[in-house]
């Protein structure tokens, strides 16, 4: 069966994704700019669990009416391969990137039986001057800082989620694939419950598992490197000049599915067949991840 969107052929293949542990956090501040500053620092160096330990991104900006303290805010999603890794990364990053940012406060953005410490750990910065306050079954910590108080919820929920949803844009040129990529990430950006953790929402360094060099857990996926055309076994057409991959982490499989659908539609309609040779997806033969997002099913 062939499937095309705006003349762009869609491979009959699937994206292979993995079970992850995730949390959602809400950062508020006196102005949206401070909240964004904190969120950007907090989610920095969090593109891939391969070396960052965590994948993070800004889910959405929140108006004051949707935040616990009635100030402008930002919702952030974080994904890791284990609860233990989340528990390690989140307090450390919150302490260095949110506690330090002027006027911010940090709140749990999701419920969950399993908890990840926030203020429960950060409170010790208060050196005995911190104050605990329990309001409506939630515990908050108030830590005196130079601009007033850093208000931080004691902990946040941890839930099961999915990481590694993806699709690859096979471009006829760098310009075309860039335009298609930007259109895709722009379409995904306002969606709730998903993030695209790589810079600008996309990566050029799609990887395979392992390497010829011992100790490396991942290395370049030569089968998708156009510059190696004719040198290694490849499944891409000769006219493909550049490929970008959109990687999506989501709170549910359905959220990833919807994001892939919107992203692929936006990319194809932005540049059409004149810009894209096709759309495909990354997988490991279905052996590593239990979530398989078949492109044709996603786009139905």
């Amino acid at each position, binding site marked *: 069966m062939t499937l095309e969107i705006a003349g762009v052929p869609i491979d009959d293949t699937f994206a292979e994704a993995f079970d992850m542990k995730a949390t959602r956090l809400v950062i*508020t501040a006196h102005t949206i700019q401070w909240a964004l500053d904190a969120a950007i620092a907090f989610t920095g160096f969090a593109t891939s669990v391969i070396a960052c330990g965590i994948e993070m991104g800004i889910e959405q900006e929140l108006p004051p009416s949707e935040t*616990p*303290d*009635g*100030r402008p805010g930002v919702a952030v999603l974080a994904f890791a391969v284990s609860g233990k890794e989340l528990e390690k990364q989140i307090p450390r990053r919150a302490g260095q990137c949110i506690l330090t940012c002027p006027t911010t*406060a940090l709140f749990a953005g999701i419920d969950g039986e399993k908890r990840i410490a926030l203020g429960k750990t950060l409170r010790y910065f208060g050196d005995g*001057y911190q*104050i*605990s*306050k*329990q*309001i*409506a079954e939630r515990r*908050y910590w*108030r830590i005196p800082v130079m601009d*007033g*108080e850093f*208000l931080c919820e004691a902990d946040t929920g941890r839930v099961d989620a999915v990481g590694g949803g993806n699709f690859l844009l096979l471009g006829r040129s760098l310009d075309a694939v860039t335009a298609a990529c930007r259109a895709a990430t722009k379409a995904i950006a306002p969606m709730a419950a998903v993030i695209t953790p790589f810079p600008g929402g996309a990566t050029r360094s799609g990887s395979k598992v392992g390497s010829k060099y011992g100790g490396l857990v991942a290395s370049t996926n030569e089968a998708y490197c156009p510059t190696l055309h004719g040198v290694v076994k490849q499944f891409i057409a000769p006219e493909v000049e550049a490929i970008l991959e959109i990687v999506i982490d989501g709170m549910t499989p359905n959220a990833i599915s919807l994001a892939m659908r919107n992203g692929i539609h936006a990319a194809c309609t932005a540049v059409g067949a004149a810009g894209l040779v096709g759309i495909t997806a990354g997988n490991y033969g279905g052996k590593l991840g239990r979530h398989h997002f078949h492109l044709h099913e996603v786009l139905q």
Partner: protein
Amino acid sequence: MSGWELTLKQQPDFDLDAAAISSVATDAGDISKISLPSARPDLTAEIGELFHVKRRDDELVHISGDLTRFHRLGHAWSGGSLVVEGSVGVQFAAQMRAGTITLRGDADDGVATQMRGGDLFIQGNIGDFAAGPLPGRRSGMRGGRLRLIGNAGHHTGHRLRRGWIMIRGSVGDCLASDMVAGTIAVSANLGDNVGAGMKRGTLVLSPAASLSSLRFTPPRPVSLGITQLIADELQSHLPDVAAMLRNRLHRSLGDLTAGGMGEILLAH
């Protein structure tokens, strides 16, 4: 849970420990035989002798009458709803753990003594030492919420450890004495010696308070993120205090003479 209607036949001429009445909430059998002791071993009374007892279709326990000689009513209430119409004796809802209790009437001293959880709503005036500890114990109320439409006596919130007290009325002297943590909000008048011995916790005072300069830091303007959350919590019961919290505030810390760092939030 079981629903019961208990209507007092006539007020007894001796005081009774009514703590055992709490057990009717989980008793679907014959509750009329439950015995209520008094201070004198020879004077006891069964529920059936004191009240007209009727089963209810719902799970509410409803008690009505002049219950001023019934002490420790609602003791250790652990779930479900109790509604009391009429004034009650001492230690009403003491050691309450969960569920809801509504009192339409006045209560004597020791309301919510060592309360641990649940929602206690009183439409009436209450005596001294509300939410305090049992004699000889270190901590008062440790959780839950006490909302009062009426006035409270002296030493309200003495040694309060956790939980919320919201008072839509006036309070006597020594509000929050030796308070350890938790939150108390008051919308009408205050007695003397507010926060004496206070260690931690939050007092939100809508009326003007004259604080001892020895005990408390001079009030200074503050902008705190937590006040919005406290305001949300107070909004339905104390809208005037909530409105105050949403504006610019002053804060004092103390009791300094006790090495305390409790906070008192006041109107700007």
